[in-house]
């Protein structure tokens, strides 16, 4: 079927409930749900392959192991965030506060007082602070019935403001030795950061795809009323995904703090946009109910690779920005085309 019916031009991914509402409208394209996801992912793998070719043609260093390891280490922070963000978006919400939570967790974990408790104290603080922030978001959204976008924009302001207040504006240096090791240790030649990233992805994937909780996240995002009438505690699911997102922020904050050896109120600035962009590029619907974790991770890797190639090629900043925008559009167009051909 090479002809394109007008049905297919109404993009289901585009406008949330609108397109959603018509179950028949996109069905021709999505013959099989699993298949559609697989194609989305294949499309991204294709884009990545093209990037790798471009990278290795235009620069000498691209395929060197040291560069690939660097690329993954850089991807790992946004990567971890995007795991939590995938849960949030599939459940039908959005979390704009992740960058700010990172800032607050990193600052709180690196105050003089905290550092006295050593490595464990710092880790514990980061996790507690970030999870509490996530919990506050989640409770306001799920039990207060507020819109997640507004709540997390408010969170963004509050948490970053608190980070600035606590740190007095200046970055706090990590003095605890063991902490810095997080960024420098290798496990069988792979940086610990990358190992943490991989572990987060695996755990997240299992949680999303193999547990009842994961199913409930999909159901709540796909049709909250149906989920409620099926006996699912919709509010608890909604609150939990934000706590999960907070937990991912904690991990990301620990990684970033270790990598920079500082806690700073500017840490994580605009990471929310990077994470959301990666998740959506990975094929998760902004309106909830559908998505894959693997897609999100590929999204992160694509974005990081683009950056890496730019740096290796020594492009000027504005040109890089322009090229990045154009590459994103080309990537989604390619992905869409792959999708359609496979379907036809």
């Amino acid at each position, binding site marked *: 079927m090479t002809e394109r019916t007008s049905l297919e031009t109404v993009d289901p991914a585009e406008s949330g409930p609108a397109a959603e509402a018509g179950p028949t409208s996109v069905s021709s394209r999505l013959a099989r749900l699993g298949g559609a996801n697989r194609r989305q992912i294949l499309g991204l793998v294709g884009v990545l392959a093209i990037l790798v070719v471009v990278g290795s043609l235009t620069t000498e*260093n691209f395929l060197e192991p040291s*560069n690939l390891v660097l690329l993954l280490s850089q991807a790992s*922070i946004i990567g971890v965030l995007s795991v939590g963000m995938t849960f949030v978006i599939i459940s039908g919400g959005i979390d704009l506060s992740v960058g700010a939570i990172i800032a607050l967790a990193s600052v709180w974990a690196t105050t003089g007082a905290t550092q006295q408790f050593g490595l464990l104290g710092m880790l514990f603080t980061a996790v507690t602070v970030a999870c509490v922030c996530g919990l506050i978001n989640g409770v306001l959204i799920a039990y207060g019935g507020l819109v997640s976008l507004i709540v997390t924009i408010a969170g963004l302001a509050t948490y970053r403001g608190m980070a600035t207040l606590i740190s007095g504006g200046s*970055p706090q240096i990590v003095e605890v030795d063991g902490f810095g090791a997080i*960024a420098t240790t290798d496990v069988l030649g792979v940086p610990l950061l990358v190992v943490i990233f991989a572990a987060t992805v695996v755990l997240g994937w299992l949680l999303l795809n193999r547990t009842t909780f994961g199913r409930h996240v999909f159901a709540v995002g796909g049709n909250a009323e149906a989920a409620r009438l099926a006996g699912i505690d919709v509010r608890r699911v909604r609150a939990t995904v934000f706590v999960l997102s907070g937990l991912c922020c904690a991990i990301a904050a620990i990684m*970033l703090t270790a990598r920079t050896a*500082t806690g*700073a109120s500017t840490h994580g600035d605009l990471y929310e946009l990077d994470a959301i962009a990666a998740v959506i590029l990975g094929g998760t619907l902004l309106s909830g109910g559908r998505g894959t974790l693997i897609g999100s991770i590929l999204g992160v890797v694509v974005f990081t690779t683009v950056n*890496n190639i730019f740096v290796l090629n020594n492009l000027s900043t504005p040109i*890089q920005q322009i090229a990045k925008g154009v590459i994103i559009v080309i990537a989604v167009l390619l992905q869409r085309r792959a999708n359609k051909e496979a379907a036809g």
Partner: protein
Amino acid sequence: TGSGNDSGGGSSQLVGRQEGDNSQPGKNVTIGLSIPSDDHGWMGAIGENAVAQADSFDDVTLEATEGTNDVNRQISQVKTLINKKVDVLAILPFNGESLTSVATQAMRAGIPVVNIDRVFASKLAYRTWVGGDNYGMGTGAANFIADRLDEQGKQDPTIVEITGIDNLQLTRDRSSGFSEALEARGYAVSMSQSAEFTPQSGRSVMGNVLQARDHIDAVWNHDDNQGVGVLAAIEQAGRSDEMFMVGGAGSKEMMQHIKAGDGPVAATVLYPPTMSATAINMARLLAQGRDLADLVERAVPSNVTLHSETVTKDNVDQHLPTSF
């Protein structure tokens, strides 16, 4: 110290060294450069001056990376440059503390680091630092304002400070220089609000400040980029005659206003973006194993703090050419 690559000066004769030696081509070296986003006039000038300076040497190849305000990304860039085995690094970090560990790694790997402007947290992280005198900017501005107010004989004047990005060390240095020097002269800051180095933020913050204060005598604005907006707010409120304004950093725009004397801008305290060119010079010498011919202790110094001059109508012509 200057930004030119001729290092003329009488003192070199003292030890009988040949003049201008360092301008002669040496061994080919690669300098890696990493700076924040050039979305700011001053930062843009930093990038341009570095590139121009590097271009002026036949023996220098510049590897400049994407400007970024994300420390994680800047760390990756520096690591990429280390991987590429550049001979020397020139780094203006988004914040000094967060880039300290990667700069230390570079130093350990035998790559000397020239730190520009925002200073690293550890001396182990750089071979030499080139930057401006932020505290000095504050005192320069304060002294100029105090002189004027003394002249005018104002009692209890309203002095407003529009700072730059709140959480930078340099902002705090500028502020403390300002308030301490004012205090020493018997004045005090009446109101301090922070903008974000952008014209837009300057416009909106100053708009509100003008609303909060019925009368303002003097304004010190930390950054000339945001100063464009601060100035627009004053002019559009029709209160140009009520106050005078001191800028910061030394943009062409502000210097032209000083020269023309057409509004509230009376002075600006320098924070020269040519420091990146100086840094390129230092980096080249370090990589080539050369030294500074016109110093008695010839090794490249570990710290170069540029003087923050106060540009007024009297000396503006002298500074206009190096403005950005």
